[in-house]
Structures are given as structure tokens and as C-alpha cells.
């Protein structure tokens, strides 16, 4: 499999699509080059690739936090009435407000967007989410009273409480230990699928990508573009723990490793000219 352009992007009624985008930091080389990627309604797309290949940049462009040098981000009109909140993002670093309780952090969208929602409806929705994500009993706690895994759950709920059309996840669980991470995966998957939210997940964790994704995109070394696309066969109902022993999981896992190794090697070879990890603001996940 070689570089593949997703030309079907807008024909498929994608929610949002990157259309032949190129991106670079001001005065620097291209980080992403000629990348096209569409996101179908309710689809989970996972993006993997070597460090510095522009995975996070891809998300910041979708979020409108960074403007591409060329190409465009195209949104399809929202068929829902009233229109849904277009997009939220769960960042790699903590975004919980320390003076707010779990409940208040989760319902932050309503306060920040000025969305008028009947008090009872809002409370009901928050309560449902809290229940689904296993945070019952932590509603009145402050972030400093929560474990790392619980904080991530709260941040996730804050991102989905508005039931956005698109959710971007930027390596959201990379700081968690593996059992905690896998436990969260199941809840994330169930909530996202039941709410009909389209997801782009950037991750370093291949197991995470294979177990959650409908489609996996492998990016090339910088400048990043699509190197390979894989569709997973696991469907809309998944038992994440079980999937991890499935033969298809294991073969896809191995296949992704091979492809990533090729790209990591190629990144290493070109790193004599520049360090792919050290783009401006690389730590913050994009330009501001």
C-alpha cells in the first residue's frame, strides 16, 4: 500500500474533510503536505505515525486553531435541527478547571456557549453521562481529589456533553497506565457510538488505534501525508478487552507495526537535517 488520496471525501457526505491541505510553521518547512481525509458520520478514525509527522497539527487544523498553507477544511451542512455543536477536542494535557466540581466541569459547554437548556434536561444528561463513564459519587469532587484516570474521564465527558458532531482526541490517554487506559476505552467507544459522534483520535498506542477505530490512517514521516489506510472488521458493538485477543486484532497490530517502523526509520534518516520533534510549539500541539 502506498500513498493514497481520499478523493471520495465530499461525495460520501462526510461531516468534515481536509481537502489537499499543506501546513508549515511560519518560515519553516512543510509539516503536512497534500493531505486529504474525510470523516464519515459516526465514524472513528485513528491516526498513527512517527513523532513529528503532523498528527496533532492535523487535529488543530480540523479544529480551526491552525490555518493550512494551502488546501481547505470543508464542513458539510448539519442536517440536524437544531444544529449540533460542531466540534470539541480533548487535549493531551489537562483542561479541567480546578475550581469547578466534576459536574460543573462536565457542563462547562453550556455555561461557555450560553446554551439555554432546561435545568432538568441538563442535569439529566450530565447524570446519564456520569453514570455511563463510571464517575458516580465523584460529581461534587474537585479535580485535585480525582485520580489521573478519573480526570481524563471528566475531560472526556466535558468534550461530549454537548453531543458535538465531531470530537478530536489528541493522545488523550498517553499518561495513563495500561489497565486504566483499556478500561476507559470501552466507555469511550460506547458513549461515542451511542451519541453518533464522529471521532478523530491521534495516538501513539497501536493497540488503542486498532481496538477503537473504524478506520486507521498511517502517516508518513514529516512532511506528513497518508501512507496507508486500514479498515477494522470489529463493527459497532465491541468488547474492547476481548478484541485484543482476536486474530484480526493481532494481524492488524503487526501490520501497523511494520508500516510504522518503515516511517520511523525514514524519519530518523532525515533527522540529520532537522529534528522532527522540535518544531515550534511542538509541545503545545500546534501554533497559536
Amino acid at each position, binding site marked *: 500500500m502506498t500513498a493514497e488520496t481520499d478523493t471520495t471525501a465530499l461525495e460520501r457526505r462526510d461531516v468534515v474533510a481536509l481537502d489537499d491541505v499543506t501546513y508549515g510553521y511560519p518560515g519553516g518547512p512543510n509539516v503536512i503536505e497534500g493531505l486529504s481525509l474525510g470523516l464519515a458520520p459516526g465514524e472513528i478514525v485513528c491516526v498513527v505515525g512517527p513523532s513529528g509527522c503532523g498528527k496533532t497539527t492535523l487535529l488543530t487544523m480540523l*479544529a480551526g*486553531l491552525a490555518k493550512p498553507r494551502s488546501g481547505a477544511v470543508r464542513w458539510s451542512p448539519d442536517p440536524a435541527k437544531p444544529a449540533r*455543536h460542531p*466540534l*470539541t*477536542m480533548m*487535549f*493531551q*494535557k*489537562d*483542561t479541567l*478547571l*480546578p*475550581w*469547578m466540581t466534576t459536574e460543573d466541569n462536565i457542563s*462547562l*459547554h453550556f*455555561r*461557555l*456557549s*450560553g*446554551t439555554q437548556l432546561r435545568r432538568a434536561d441538563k442535569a439529566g444528561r450530565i447524570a446519564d453521562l456520569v453514570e455511563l463513564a463510571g464517575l458516580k459519587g465523584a460529581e461534587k469532587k*474537585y*479535580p*485535585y*481529589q480525582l485520580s489521573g484516570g478519573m480526570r481524563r474521564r471528566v475531560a472526556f465527558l*466535558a468534550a461530549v456533553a*454537548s453531543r458535538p458532531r465531531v470530537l478530536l482526541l489528541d493522545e488523550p490517554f498517553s499518561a495513563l497506565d495500561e489497565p486504566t487506559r483499556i478500561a476507559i476505552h470501552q466507555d469511550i467507544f460506547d458513549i461515542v457510538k451511542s451519541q453518533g459522534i464522529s471521532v478523530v483520535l491521534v495516538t501513539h498506542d497501536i493497540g488503542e488505534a486498532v481496538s477503537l477505530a473504524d478506520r486507521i490512517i498511517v502517516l508518513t514521516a514529516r512532511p506528513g501525508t497518508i501512507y496507508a489506510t486500514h479498515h477494522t472488521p470489529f463493527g459497532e458493538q465491541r468488547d474492547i478487552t476481548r478484541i485484543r485477543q482476536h486474530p484480526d486484532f493481532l494481524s492488524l497490530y503487526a501490520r501497523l507495526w511494520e508500516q510504522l517502523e518503515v516511517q520511523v526509520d525514514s524519519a530518523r534518516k532525515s533527522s540529520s537535517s532537522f529534528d522532527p520533534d522540535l518544531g515550534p510549539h511542538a509541545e*503545545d*500541539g500546534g501554533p*497559536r
Partner: protein
Amino acid sequence: MSVGRRSAVLACQVLLTAAMLLAWQYLPKVGWLSSRSHLFDPYFVSSPTQVAKALHDLAVGANGSPKIWPFLWRTMSASILGASIGMILGAAAGLVLSNSPFVSAVVRPFVVAANATPRVTLIPVIVIIAGTSLTASVIIGVLVVFFVAFFNAYEGGTSIAPQIIDNAKLLGANNWRVLRYIRLPYVMAWTFAGLPLAITFSVISVVTGELLDGYPGMGQLIATATSTGQSTLTFATTFILAVVGLAIVILSDQARDRVLHWWGK
């Protein structure tokens, strides 16, 4: 710390205090020492028993001593007013500047220069404008506290992690709501964290003002005592200021921890 260790520390502290008081009381009685240094001359250093008696006289207004309370009240009310106004103004300025890189770039050099200016030198100017009054004392307190509060507030407003602002915008916040729901709480928290320091600074500057302008607070009492050679009264007044200052710091520490409990450890 274990209980045993804590009581050992306490015991040592009591012993140390006792030793210092005894030294203060009895060393000046050694003629050989007091004739050689002012440090051991009872006229200059007084003694714990005299200070204790002066404290009693000040409390009840006995033996020709003035009652301390009106003096203390004037100083403390000016200090607390000065600290409050200074913190509110400082927080507001910090909020505005941290919210706008442009305004911040324009104003910051002036702020730094103003902060480097010794405000004590402005006291005569303030007295000319406001007279020897409570207003003058409060302005002096405000001038000092404002900068303490401002720098804290500005730091709070600019230290917000970029992803928190981005997150708020993606959740649907316009600039006003980012200011109202994100930046303002950060600024208030950081300003409030400086409460004990602000009050301490306020007391110091108000007393300094009274020393210079003669407004009848604790500072004026010290000025009078010093100029008439009453070292006992000077020590007694200073002691009262220290005790009240300590109480205020403890109270404001507790208020801060209570309000900012969510800050965690």
C-alpha cells in the same frame, strides 16, 4: 512529625524565649556591660517588665499613658482598606493587561518603572493632596498593595495553559466568556493567594506613612515615643503591631486556604 518530636521542638522554643527575655531583663543590670554599650543600657533597651507594664497602661490608659485602641483602630482600618482597594485595583489591572497582549506591551514598562519607584518618597505629595488624614493613609497602603496584587494577577492571567483557552473556545466560548469564566477566576485566585503578603505590606506602609505625616495611628505613637526618648513605649507599640500583624497573617492565610481549597496540595 511525631508527637514526641513536636513537644521537644515546642519545649526548646519556650526555653529559647525564656532565655531571651531573661537576657533582656538582666544583662543591662550588669554595670560592666551597660557602661560599655548602648545595647545593654536600660535607657535605650528598656526591659521586659517595663514593656509589660507599658502594655498594661496602654490597654487601660493608666499612669498618663494614652489608650492604644483608637491608634490601633486608625492604623488597622487604613491598612485593611488600603489592602482591599489595592487588591481590587491590582486584580482589575492584571485582568485587563493579561487579556490583551497589546495593552500589556504598551503599559508594562510604566508599571515596572512605577513599581521600582520608592513609594515612601511620594508620602509628602500625598499628604499635600489629601492632608494628614485617613484618606492619605489608605492611599499610601493602596500604592504599595496595588503592585503586589497586580503582579500576582497578571501572572495568574498569563499563566493559563494555552490548551485551556483553546478548549474553552472550542466548547463555544466567545472572548467575553473566556474572560468572564476562565481568565477572571484565575486572576482572582492568584490575587487572593497574595492576601497575607498584601496585608503585611499594607500595615508596613501605613505605619511608615504615620511615622512621616503624623496621622494619629501606631506610627505616630512610635514617632512621639522615639523623639521623647521613651524606649519602653516604642517597644510596647512595636510589640502590639507585631502581634496584630501576626494575627492578621494567620487569619488571611486561613481565609486563603479556605477560598482556594480546590487548589489542592
